[in-house]
């Protein structure tokens, strides 16, 4: 019977997810050059008297500031929730975790500074540029949060893999004991081997998800980079889902093995009862 211990030793060697390259995007989200892409002709479309246009512009600016403030607040809250989730991760390396926290803190601070600036803006075009930068420069929802969510899911999968590897070693011991007692363990042994293979596959997928997403940086308005980041995140998402399917299959294998051991025990008890009669 192939030993699960081999898989356990391999998995323990990779029990900590290490990205191929640590994220280096501290401060990369702030883009002071966003104003260069702003369209400066829109203000000519407002058709009112001179006095009334000033009032409308002020009102529009006030609404824009309020809306931007809401969007910044929404992102800040999402980042704070994400930071709490990162604190619960324990299967990634300390360095990776520190980098995640650093990036989140940097984004929260930058958003706070941006809100202060937006509230103080008096020029329409400057305000427009700052409002646009909330989505284009910081990419909280387009990159930062998905990136950390992928890491959190991979961390959870690594924990489950570790737990199932330990459980697999216990099941192996039970199977060996049954074999010593003379039981036919062919079927459940094959299931145990399959369980080990599924866990190994899950580990590979989880690691690939981390490797493919940990090094992404904000696109700062670069359409090509934005598309590339989106594709990389989608690929990492697929890896997470593949790992999820593997651990689900391994979990079913556990049930099969436990049921098989129960059947073997019941058969042994029955034969013992018959013999004593």
């Amino acid at each position, binding site marked *: 019977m192939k030993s699960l211990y081999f898989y356990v030793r391999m998995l323990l060697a990779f029990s900590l997810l290490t990205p191929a390259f640590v994220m280096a995007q501290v401060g990369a989200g702030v883009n002071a050059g966003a104003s260069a892409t702003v369209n400066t002709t829109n203000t000519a479309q407002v058709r009112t008297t001179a006095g009334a246009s000033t009032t409308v512009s002020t009102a529009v600016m006030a609404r824009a500031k309020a809306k931007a403030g809401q969007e910044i607040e929404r992102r800040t809250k999402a980042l704070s929730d994400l930071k709490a*989730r990162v604190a619960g991760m324990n299967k990634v390396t300390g360095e990776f975790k520190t980098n995640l926290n650093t990036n989140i803190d940097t984004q929260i601070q930058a958003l706070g500074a941006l809100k202060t600036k937006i509230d103080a803006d008096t020029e329409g075009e400057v305000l427009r540029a700052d409002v646009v930068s909330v989505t284009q420069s910081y990419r909280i*929802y387009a990159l930062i949060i998905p990136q950390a969510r992928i890491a959190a899911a991979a961390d959870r999968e690594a924990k489950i893999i570790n737990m199932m590897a330990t459980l697999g070693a*216990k099941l192996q011991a039970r199977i060996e004991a049954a074999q010593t007692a003379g039981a036919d363990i062919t079927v459940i042994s094959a299931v145990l081997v399959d369980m080990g293979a599924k866990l190994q596959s899950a580990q590979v997928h989880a690691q690939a998800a981390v490797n493919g997403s940990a090094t992404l940086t904000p696109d700062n308005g670069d359409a090509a980079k934005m598309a590339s980041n989106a594709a990389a995140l989608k690929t990492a998402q697929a890896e997470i889902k593949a790992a999820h399917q593997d651990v689900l299959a391994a979990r079913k294998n556990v049930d099969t093995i436990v049921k098989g051991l129960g059947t073997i025990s019941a058969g042994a008890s029955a034969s013992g009862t018959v013999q004593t009669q």
Partner: protein
Amino acid sequence: MEDECEKVWSLRRKTGYTNSCYYTVAKKIMPPVNPNPPTSSSRSPMKGIIIAAVVAGLLLLGGLLWMMGVFNQFMPKEAMQTATTTQQQQVQQPTNDLPTASNDASDSAIAQDSAAIDAEMGSLSSDSASMDQSLNDQPVSQEY
């Protein structure tokens, strides 16, 4: 040798030659010694310094190699196993995330472990859903 000495001694008594007979006879049967043995005053001081430097260098090299563990293969087996085991414990400490002991393979322990895994699987589904939501998030239209 004594007969030879008697002959020589009787001759010396006649001549007054008083050197040891045995020395005289021994010279005939023993290889000649170096009439000019080396003395300390004739050795070069540089030679001693060079020898001392070589010895010191060898000692230093040996110490470095010992620190690098090159001689581990010649260490007693018990000490080597202890050192290796300690090193392995420091580098790779397996963690048990299960609620039961890692060596408890009883039915109750396996049931508890399975339940703990199921709880984590539920959390994984939640993490996966959050991940999907974050990737499907649409940008909110701005006032401008």
